C-alpha cells in the first residue's frame, strides 16, 4: 500500500489541488479529442449534405444489427467503468478489479465485432481509397449495384472515423490492462485513485463518439 505522501508531487500544495489539476488537464485533452473527431464529422456532414441519396444507399451495406450490438457493448463498458469509480471511492478494490476486467472484455468484444465487419467489407472490395470496387452478393444485396459515385467517399469516411475510433478503443484496452494490474497490487485507495478517474473519463468519451457514429453511419 503506497502512502498518500508519495503520490503528492512537490510542486502541488495538496492532494485536492493535484487531483483538480489532473482532472482539468484530462478534460482539456478530451476537448482536443472532440475537435479531432469534429474534422471527420464536418467532412461527413458536407458530403452527406451534397449527396444524401448516395449516403443513404451506401449505409445499407453496414449491418445495423452489428452496429447496435457494439453500441450496447460500449454502453455496458461505460457502465462498468462508472461503477468501478464508485467502488474505488469506497475502497472496495476487489470489485474494482472485476469491473475493470469486465470493461476490458467489453472492449475486446467490440474490437472482435469490428474485425468481422472490416474483413467482410474488405473481401467484397469495399476498402479505403482507390481500390474501392464493391462486388459479390450478401443477404440478397448485390454489392456491385453500390458502385456509384461518392459511395467511395462514404466508405472512406466510414473507415477513417471507425478506424481512428478503433485505435482509441485499443489504447483504452491497454490502459485498462495496466490499471487492472495496479488495482491488483493495491495501488489505489479512496484517497488517491486519479488514474482510474482519468481513464474512466477517456473511456466515456470513446463511448460518446460511438454514440454519434452509430446512427450517422449505420442508421440514417
Amino acid at each position, binding site marked *: 500500500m503506497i502512502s498518500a505522501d508519495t503520490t503528492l508531487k*512537490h*510542486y*502541488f*500544495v495538496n492532494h485536492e*489541488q493535484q487531483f*483538480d*489539476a*489532473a482532472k*482539468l*488537464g484530462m478534460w*482539456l*485533452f478530451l*476537448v*482536443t*479529442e*472532440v*475537435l*479531432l*473527431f*469534429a*474534422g*471527420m464529422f*464536418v*467532412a461527413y456532414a*458536407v*458530403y452527406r449534405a451534397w449527396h444524401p441519396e448516395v449516403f443513404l444507399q451506401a449505409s445499407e451495406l453496414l449491418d445495423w444489427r452489428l452496429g447496435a450490438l457494439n453500441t450496447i457493448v460500449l454502453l455496458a463498458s461505460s457502465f462498468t467503468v462508472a461503477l468501478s469509480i464508485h467502488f474505488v471511492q469506497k475502497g472496495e478494490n476487489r470489485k474494482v478489479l472485476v469491473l475493470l476486467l469486465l470493461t476490458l472484455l467489453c472492449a475486446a468484444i467490440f474490437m472482435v465485432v469490428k474485425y468481422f465487419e472490416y474483413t467482410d467489407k474488405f473481401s467484397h472490395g469495399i476498402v*479505403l*481509397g*482507390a481500390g474501392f470496387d464493391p462486388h459479390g452478393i450478401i443477404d440478397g444485396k448485390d454489392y456491385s449495384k453500390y458502385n456509384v*459515385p*461518392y459511395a*467511395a*467517399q462514404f466508405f*472512406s*469516411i466510414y473507415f*477513417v472515423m471507425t478506424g*481512428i475510433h478503433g485505435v482509441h478503443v485499443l489504447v483504452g484496452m491497454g490502459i485498462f490492462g495496466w490499471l487492472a494490474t495496479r488495482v491488483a497490487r493495491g495501488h489505489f485507495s479512496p484517497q488517491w485513485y486519479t488514474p482510474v478517474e482519468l481513464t474512466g473519463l477517456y473511456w466515456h468519451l470513446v463511448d460518446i463518439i460511438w454514440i454519434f457514429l452509430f446512427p450517422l453511419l449505420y442508421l440514417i
Partner: protein
Amino acid sequence: MSDTSHNYLNAKKGLWSWLTTTDHKRIGILYAIACGAFFLLGGILATFVRTELGAPGETILGQDEYNQVFTLHGVVMVFLVIIPAIPGILGNFVLPLQVGANDVAFPRLNLASWYLFMAGALMAVCGWLFVGKVDTGWTFYTPYSSGASNAVLWLTSAVFVAGFASIFTGLNFIVTVHKMRAPGMTWNRLPLFTWAIYATAIVQVLATPVIGITMVLLFLEKLLHIGIFDPALGGDPVLFQHFFWFYSHPAVYIMILPAMGIISDLMGTFSRQHVSGYTFIALSSVAIAFLGFLVWGHHMFVSGQSALSSIIFSMLTFLIGIPTGIKVFNWVATMYKGSVWLKTPMLYALMFLFLFTIGGLTGIMVGVLAVDVHLHDTYFVVAHFHYVMMGGALIGLIGGLHYWWPKMTGRMYNEKAGVIAAILVFIGFNLTFFTQFFLGSKGMPRRYHDYSEFLETFPEFAALNMTSTIGSYILGVGLVMILIYALYSLVRGPRATANPWGACTLEWTHTETVPDEHNFHDTPLVTRGPYDYHLADDVFGPKKES
C-alpha cells in the same frame, strides 16, 4: 556561474540532466536553443529568396529550387519557429514564475512536448534531405499537394507530431493558470503576459487538433486516394482549405497573442506605471482568441467558396480590429505621462507598436472583399503578414528575450550593441517589407522566382525589389549582431542584479537573480497588482539608475 548561489542552471550538471529535465525553466532553454537554430535556418532560406529576387531574371535559384526554398522557409518559420517560440521559450520560463508556482502542472508532459516538437522537426528535415523536395508552399493546398512528391507525407506527419507538442504546451498552461496560482494571485492580479499566454493556450488546445486530423486526411488522400480533397476522385479541394485555415488562422493568433502579452509587460515596466486599461487588455486577449476562430474564410475569398460565406467572413474579420485596437490604444496610453525608459527591450516594444499597427491595418484592408480580390496572392499580402508575423510576433519575442535575459542567464548584454542592433533591425525590416506593399498593390504576384516579364509595364519593380533585398541584408546583419552579443554576454557579460529593470511582477521581485531550481524559497503571498508602480519603489527592488 561558480560564484553564484545554487540555481536552476547549476543544480544538476551534464547534457543528460538537461535532456531529462522536467524543470520548466530548463525546458524553456531547450526550446530557445531549438527555435534559435530553426530561426537561423529559416533566415538563411529567406536570404536565398530575397537574393533571387534582388535582380530580374534567374540569379541564384531556378524556378523549382525557388519554390522549394520558399516552401521550406514558410514551414520552418511558421511551424518550427513562430508558433512554438514564445509559448515554448518565454511561456515555459516565465509563466510559472509569474503566477507564483513551483512548476507547470504537468512537468513530464512538458518535457514530452519538447521531444515531440523535436521529433516533428526531425521528420521535416529528414523528409527534406532524404525523400524529396516539397514545393507546395507551407499551406499544402490540394490537389497540388496530393499529387506532389512523397516528401509531402513527411512534412504532413511532421506538422501532425509538432501539433501535439503545441497542444501539450497549451494544456499545461491552462491548468497551471487555473489551479496553481500562489495565494492572493487573483485573476485580476495576473500579469498581462500570463493572460496572453493563457488566451493563446485556449487557441492551441481548441484549434490544433483540427490540423492534426487534416494532416491525417491529407496523408491518406496521398497514400490511398480516399477522395475527400482530391477533385480528380470526386473530392473538394476548397474543403481542404476550410480544414487547413480552421487551424491556421487561429494559429496566427497563437503567434501574435503572446507577443502582445510581452509588449504589455514591457510597456508597464519601462513606462513605470500601471498598464492602462489592464482589464481591457486582459479580456481583449481572450476576445481575440475567440474571434480568431470565426474568420478563417478570409484566406479563401478567391478560392471559389460561396459569396455568402465570403461576405460573412469579411464582416467577422473587421470585428478583430476592435480588441486589437483596444490593445494598441492602451499601450500608447500607458506611456502617456509615464517615465519612459528607452532600454533595448522598450525599443522593441515601440518597434512592435509601429510595425504591428501597419500590419494590422493592412490586414483590415485585405479583409475587404473587393480589395482582396485585387491584392490576393500579391506581395501586398506577403508584406502584410510579414509585418504581423515578423514585425509583430518575432519583434515581440526578441524584446521579451532581452527583457528576461538577465533572469534566464544571470548576465547582462551590452546595451549599446543592443540599441544599434535594434536600429538595424528596424531600418532593415521596413526597407524589406514596406517596398513590398508597393510591389503588391501594382500586382506583383507572390511565389514567382522572376519578374522580368512585368518590367515592361512596371519598370519600377526592379528598383523596389533591389531595395527590398538590400533591406533584408541589413535586417540579417542586425539579427546576427543580436546573436553575437547574446553569446558574448553568456561568457563575458556583467552579472545582473535580481531586478535590473525594477519590475514588479513575481519573477523579478520574489526570485534570486537566477531562479532556484524550485523557483521560490517560500510560496509567495501576493498582496498587490502586477504593475503597482505607484506604490513605493523600495517595495519592488532598486530604483532605476539614470
